């Protein structure tokens, strides 16, 4: 919007992918029957006490390291007090004055501004609340406490984003990093990644921040952009109409793509944070942090650069291949199994990703098999077309590429006599085109080659076919 600058900061909650919950041994898995993954601790029964999950802490530290944060040797759990039926203890165990980590950053590619570095103000560990289901029963709210106590990290950025598009790009990069290091599946639809955004606008050139609102209830990456755009436009309209923006919480409604203020009664919270007396301060030794650092895989940005340098790929190809860790590892597997790097990139970006898309992201053809297949095409044993057919067979039924190619009868025929037979057949059937070719329309060569391939059911070596065709047509 001309004359205005948008300023956005994000608070992102990410569920950690652990077997059990943050403070008890209950399963943290998604999707079980309501209230089956519960025990005295996560139900908040009288007398129950929390005991931290070491795996969750490792995940949190790895996430903080991947975001370049300073990990604090000592951090303190704190209680965030508020009443809600899906909060069994009446408080959430979180961290407040002394979080696990601070001062990190994440560089991402912004659509308008190129590479932008967002500051990570803090990253802390906490437990999730249960889930209130307001539409399950008429005139009653149902509470499912399976989610209560699932480990979360909260990642808070500075007011570093200048547009909704940019905010989305940051989030996608964040998701990519967290998926890479294996700490979360970051699925917004399942709620394993949730976003609250602080939004304000100011006149272009102003240095002071405008009054901000907090936008909540954003449930997908697409809605991030929409919700923030709607709120930005609303604030600009208010200010241009001579009004002032009120600091408040706005809820996004994706059904009509609008934001509405949360009822003020529900937001006037004083959380009365204080140090959690049931848990000693979290003390992390330098050895522990170093071990987590050593367990971090190569992160997406450096992997992308390495793919460019090591495999001679264009930036764009490297970006596609490193978008997810599974595909990147798969690509390298294909290359290590002997495939030529650029050909392997084309196959993975083409056939492999298309097949994966139709099959729940499964990479169905083993990297070694694909490398063999690429070798067969490269060496002329299979045409590219035949190679695709073999790939489909490999994906659906598995097996050895050459055996499949033989079974399909698509091994390229390099016997000049056989090819000459198909050439005669084609030339005989297309006398008119032969005349035109001889009259100077040499671009009809492609047509003849195509007809030979068709006649041979793809088996003819196209180069050989062309050679024979040229001989016959010029003689």
């Amino acid at each position, binding site marked *: 919007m001309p004359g205005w600058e948008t300023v956005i900061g994000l608070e992102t909650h990410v569920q950690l992918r652990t077997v059990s919950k943050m403070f008890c041994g209950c399963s943290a898995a998604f999707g079980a029957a309501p209230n089956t993954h519960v025990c005295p601790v996560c139900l908040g029964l009288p007398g129950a006490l929390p005991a931290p999950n070491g795996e969750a802490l490792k995940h949190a530290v790895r996430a903080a390291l991947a975001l370049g944060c300073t990990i604090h040797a000592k951090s303190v759990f704190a209680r965030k007090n508020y009443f809600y039926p899906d909060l069994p203890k009446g408080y959430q165990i979180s961290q407040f004055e002394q979080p696990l980590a601070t001062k990190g950053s994440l560089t991402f590619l912004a659509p308008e501004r190129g590479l932008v570095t967002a500051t990570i103000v803090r990253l802390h560990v906490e437990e999730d609340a249960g889930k209130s289901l307001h539409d399950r029963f008429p005139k009653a709210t149902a509470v499912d406490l399976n989610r209560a106590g699932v480990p979360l990290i909260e990642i808070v950025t500075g007011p570093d984003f200048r547009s909704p598009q940019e905010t989305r790009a940051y989030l996608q990069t964040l998701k990519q990093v967290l998926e890479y290091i294996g700490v979360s599946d970051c699925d917004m639809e399942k709620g394993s990644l949730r976003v609250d955004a602080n939004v304000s606008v100011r006149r272009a050139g102003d240095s002071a921040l405008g009054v901000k609102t907090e936008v909540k209830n954003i449930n997908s990456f697409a809605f991030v952009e929409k919700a923030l755009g709607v709120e930005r436009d609303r604030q600009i309209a208010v200010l241009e109409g001579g009004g002032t923006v009120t600091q408040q919480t706005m809820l996004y409604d994706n059904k009509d793509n609008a934001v509405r203020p949360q009822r003020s009664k529900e937001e006037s919270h*004083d959380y009365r944070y204080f140090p959690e007396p*049931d848990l000693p301060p979290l003390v992390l030794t330098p050895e522990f942090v170093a071990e987590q650092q050593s367990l971090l895989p190569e992160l997406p940005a450096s992997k992308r650069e390495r793919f460019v340098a090591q495999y001679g790929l264009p930036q764009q190809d490297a970006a596609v291949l490193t978008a997810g860790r599974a595909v990147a590892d798969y690509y390298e597997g294909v290359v290590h199994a002997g495939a030529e790097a650029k050909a392997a990139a084309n196959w993975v970006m083409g056939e492999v990703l298309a097949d994966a898309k139709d099959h729940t992201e499964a990479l169905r053809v083993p990297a070694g098999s694909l490398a063999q297949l690429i070798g067969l095409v490269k060496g002329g044993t299979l045409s590219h077309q035949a190679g695709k057919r073999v790939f489909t067979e490999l994906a659906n039924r598995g097996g050895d590429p050459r055996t499949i190619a033989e079974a399909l009868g698509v091994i390229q025929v390099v016997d000049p006599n056989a090819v000459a037979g198909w050439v005669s057949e084609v030339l005989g059937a297309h006398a008119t085109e032969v005349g035109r070719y001889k009259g100077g329309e040499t671009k009809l060569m492609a047509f003849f080659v195509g007809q030979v391939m068709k006649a041979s059911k793809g088996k003819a070596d196209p180069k050989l076919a062309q050679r024979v065709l040229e001989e016959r047509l010029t003689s």
Partner: protein
Amino acid sequence: MSDAKAIADRLVKVKRLNALLTPVKELRKSLAEQAAAARPTGVLYGMPVAVKDNICTIDFTTTCGSKILEGYRSPYDATVITKLKAAGALIAGKTNCDEFAMGSSTEHSAYGRSIHPIDKTRVPGGSSGGSAALVAAGAVPAALGSETGGSVRQPASFCGVVGIKPTYGRVSRYGLVAFGSSLDQVGALGRSVHDAARVLSVISGRDPKDTTCEDRDPLRLPTVPESLQGFVIGLPREYFPPDLDPAVRRACDRAVRLMKEQGAAVREVSLPHTQYAVPTYYVIAPAEASSNLARFDGVRYGPRAEGASDVRDLYRRTRGEGFGAEVRRRILVGTYVLSAGYYDAYYRRAQQMRALIAQDFRNAFDRGVDLLFTPTTPTPAFKAGEKLNDPVAMYLSDIFTVTANLAGLPAISVPIGRVKGLPVGGQFIGQAFLEDEMLEAAYALERAVPATEEA
């Protein structure tokens, strides 16, 4: 089983004390079942132990003396209960207490006040008043109580029995319904130092379910010492103020004389921040309580108020009807001191003062004092109703006990005489995790002092 019947008979005989909350029929049935299942090899085999009603048990309801948990039955046993059972002890029912352990007289129970076994017009102390009264009346040799600011030692002193509060982290709190989590410890009451100590020994030790419980082996019981030779006992002057009840002072003086006769070296010490202990305590404990008691909202368990218009109203009604006046008062105070704008002035300052109080003790111990000796309470048991409408007067009856909770130190109250027929207790405060040393001194004092004679 006749043992079980005899145990139940003794408890039923003192029903007039209103010390036991468990119905007689249920008690008899459970004791018979437990006796049949008890492990004969356990060190407490067959020993009945009554349990304060804020400690979770599968076998009996756990109400914390509150209407808000009326009929509540825990699906799990507290770790201390599991340990008692493993040692062959029998859980001899649940004892009356001030609601959520908030009080010093057992008058703040939703199930009526408990009666002092010697003088029915007086209170047995609190909040573990039911446990103390049952032990004093001879109905059980030992009982579990809980301490946040003196709730084991004060009633032990009032009733003339022994009460031990262990070092914070010595005993698991898992299954103790939380009041002030950073202060709470399960404690033991007994007819004698030995009875209380052997129960404490059994319930002590590591528990992975409570990360504030130290990773230590159970407490090993010391032997009764020949003398107090080599012990240096400090008398903190702040615990013997000029206006101390003269009879209590006489009883303490006699106890000190007897300890000297046994070879103890006695010297006066100062704990200069003592005067701030009660105000500090009444910021920290209610702050934690306001949060700990938030879970009692009528949503998942316990009675739920009728006729609520929405969920806020449901909370208001359930908690308004379910909690008594003292609990509501402390929730309000605790909510206030944690509020934005007041936190620094109250809660943070109280934590700073708490650190200074703990440092006072370390300074005394660093100067060569092994143990401190003080009166347990400023007066013997007071009359029922006397302090009910004066909360501050009630709070001041814990003036000599709250410091050990704030500093996390072990302490024990031992009967040291009578005043007009009412028991008076003397208190040892020990060094962290040196319960054994404290118990040795308590054994020696117990042996030397004519506890049932006028001081």
